[in-house]
């Protein structure tokens, strides 16, 4: 700018000079004095212009300085505005948070619904009976043909800063509503303690506390079906403690009504005390970044006390009604190992799980309650286990294999042994499944199993059952929990 002005100054003077030369009448007639005057006038003019130009330059410099300082002021203002904006965001966020309780719907519990259904194909007439297992018919199996599964409704929210409440209701395909779980849990006991109360699934075993829609296979394992009735739950209290250690160590105990005689069916209770106790311990951790594991041990003990368990005939052929009064104890151990490359399960992961349970039953067994009605001491020690692996080999696809085995063990029915044969029989089953998961919220599964779980009493011949399922599981609403 200044350079331009200087050039202008030069050209102005030049022009002025040329103009003066042209306007002078003749250089020849010019006197010395006249020349001197003209020179003086020129110098005056130059001085005048130069001072004016200097004044202009000064004005310009001042203007530039002003512009510079206002630019600085502008950038300062911008920074202030940014600070203000972030403050406003904070206020807005806090305001939004503060507004939430004002709205009625915002306090609604998290709601989710599980829709599921199956198409079951059974080679022979479906039966829940497993040869050699008292009361194995108490648990439910998936129906033959197309059928709606249990639609599950989950509601959960904080009660206040101290408790959290959850309800899991199941709408059965027979149009009934069942309360599967309804419990409170403490949030502020601290010290690693949590107290749970109400109706809940027991913490024993690995799969037991998990609802069927999260299982890796459409059907429960045989040991889970025979000993725990698929999912063993009770009305009572559970106290858990997590140790303050760099690895996971959890101890838990439960006391309950004993609503279910695990694996054998419901009991009507009429006593003040508890009828069921459980203990469980879990340890776990990571190995490197790709592996994680959990090892569990559990014990459940129950007594019939004021009630008796109605039992179907255990070989499912005579149709006799029997019953049992006494106690049962179940010991269990479980191990889960998971693998995902670098701990990222997005593209590939593998879950290995195995569980073992041993059951001891002793008490009074009554044979044929509507006929002979003979009661005598009875004792049984039985066990079962499974081992399974599920591999997710693609973001959408998983495949899994499971092997089940149950051992009828020793069964001593005393005097009733004369009427009931006690088969020494090991039930086995092999299951293969593949499922397609277009998103975290939907799953479509195909499963086929070959089970050898029944024996013809007369001939001792093992019956082989091939069963296939197609199943869908959809989850709506609140995001489900990623359990280990």
């Amino acid at each position, binding site marked *: 700018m200044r350079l331009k002005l200087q050039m202008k100054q030069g050209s102005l003077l030049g022009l002025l000079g040329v103009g003066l030369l042209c306007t002078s009448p003749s250089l020849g007639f010019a006197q010395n004095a006249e020349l001197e005057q003209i020179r003086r006038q020129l110098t005056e003019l130059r001085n005048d212009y130069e001072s004016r130009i200097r004044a202009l330059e000064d004005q310009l410099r001042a203007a530039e300085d002003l512009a510079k300082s206002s630019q600085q002021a502008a950038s300062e203002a911008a920074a202030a505005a*940014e600070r203000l*904006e*972030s403050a406003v*965001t*904070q206020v807005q*966020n*806090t305001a939004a*948070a503060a507004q939430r309780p004002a709205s009625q719907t915002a306090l609604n519990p998290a709601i989710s619904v599980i829709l599921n259904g199956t198409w079951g194909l059974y080679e022979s007439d479906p039966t829940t009976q497993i040869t050699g297992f008292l009361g194995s018919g108490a648990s439910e199996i998936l129906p033959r043909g197309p059928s709606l599964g249990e639609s599950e409704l989950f509601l959960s929210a*904080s009660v206040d*800063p101290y408790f*959290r409440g959850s309800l899991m209701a199941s709408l059965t395909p027979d149009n009934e509503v069942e309360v599967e779980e309804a419990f409170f*849990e403490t*949030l*502020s*006991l*601290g*010290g*690693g*303690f*949590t107290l749970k109360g109400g109706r809940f699934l027991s913490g024993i075993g690995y799969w037991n506390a998990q609802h069927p829609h999260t299982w890796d296979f459409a059907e429960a394992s045989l040991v889970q079906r025979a000993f725990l009735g698929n999912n063993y739950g009770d009305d009572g209290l559970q106290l*858990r*403690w*997590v*140790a*303050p*250690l*760099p*690895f*996971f*160590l*959890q101890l838990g105990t439960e006391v309950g009504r004993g609503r279910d005689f695990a694996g054998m069916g419901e009991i009507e209770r009429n006593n003040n005390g508890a009828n069921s106790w459980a203990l469980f311990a*879990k*340890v*776990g*951790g*990571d190995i490197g*970044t790709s592996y*994680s*594991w*959990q090892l569990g041990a559990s014990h459940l003990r129950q007594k019939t006390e004021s009630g008796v368990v109605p039992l179907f005939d255990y070989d499912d052929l005579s149709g006799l009604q029997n019953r049992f009064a006494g106690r049962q104890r179940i010991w269990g151990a479980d191990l889960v190992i*998971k693998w995902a490359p*670098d*701990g*990222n*399960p*997005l*593209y590939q992961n593998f879950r290995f799980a195995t569980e073992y349970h041993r059951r001891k039953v002793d008490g009074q067994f009554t044979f044929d309650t509507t006929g002979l009605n003979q009661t005598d001491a009875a004792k049984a020690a039985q066990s079962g286990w499974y081992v399974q692996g599920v591999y997710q080999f693609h*973001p*959408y696809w998983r495949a899994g294999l499971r092997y089940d085995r149950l051992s009828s063990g020793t069964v001593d029915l005393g005097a009733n042994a004369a009427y009931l044969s006690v088969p020494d029989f090991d039930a086995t089953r092999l299951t293969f499944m593949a499922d397609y998961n*277009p*998103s*975290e*919220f939907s799953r479509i599964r195909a499963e086929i199993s070959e089970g050898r779980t029944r024996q013809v009493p007369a001939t001792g011949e093992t019956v082989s059952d091939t069963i296939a399922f197609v199943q869908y599981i959809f989850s*709506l609403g609140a*995001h*489900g*929990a*990623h*359990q*280990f």
Partner: protein
Amino acid sequence: MKAILRCAVFVWLAATSSAHAAINVFACEQEWGSLVKEVAGARADVYVATTAAQDIHKIQARPSLIARARLADLAVCTGADLEIGWMPLVLTQSGNAKIQLGTRGFLEVSNYVPLIEVPTVIDRAMGDVHPRGNPHIQWGPRQIQLAANEIAKRLAEIDAAGSAEYQRRLADFTARWTAATARWSQLAAPLKGVSVIQHHVNYSYLIAFLGMRLAGTLEPKPGVEPTASRLNDLIQQQASNPAKLIVRSSYHSSAPSEWLAERANIPAVMLPATVGGTAVAGDIFGMYDDAIRRMLSAIGS
């Protein structure tokens, strides 16, 4: 009995020896772990629950996470539903009253920073949408500064004795962060206006900060893996709205972005998902440095 006693003593020693720092912090993600270290220095023992190789959405409530949450005085997470699948379960399982939802010991950073890409319509038909907005806030420099401010505040509340140190360290961090932010703006000048396709919406904040243009995502919907038809659509889109660059995070498969890069004849580049995503991305500063340099070298400037 003696053996049990000996075991108990061992457990007690193991438990107490790990608590040498003034405050135990459970950070859900690497960026918050790095930020807590910046603000707290040696006063905090920081455990970070996840790595840059993991998709945070897919984490499970593993036993190790529950054990570490049990020990924490402060938990720092992103919030905005990023950890919805596992953190609520970790919290209730931990039995730790100090870091339950609604306590001062549980900090969800997203409550203190502006979020972008807030959906106006929320339906799962749109994929795994986050109703509160894009939760990948670690790529917004302003978000990081606001997070550091809140972290310092919470640390001082829980560990009052360290209050002065937290203030001093925060001021120091702020000065360095402001300088770094200015440096990145300058360094990334060639990226201004560059059209970019990202795998998932991981880098929306960075794209906005650097003045780049978002031309689309490889995922047809958030959380849904890229499909062949989606990739073909993106090739078609190149004619009308040409992108110059494809970015994916360190936990994503390289296959979809490389496939598209080859056919669209534009570079594909892996960026750290967070701190630790690459060798250079050792802390919150390094992660920005590396991401910007990788993009610059990909577009050849």
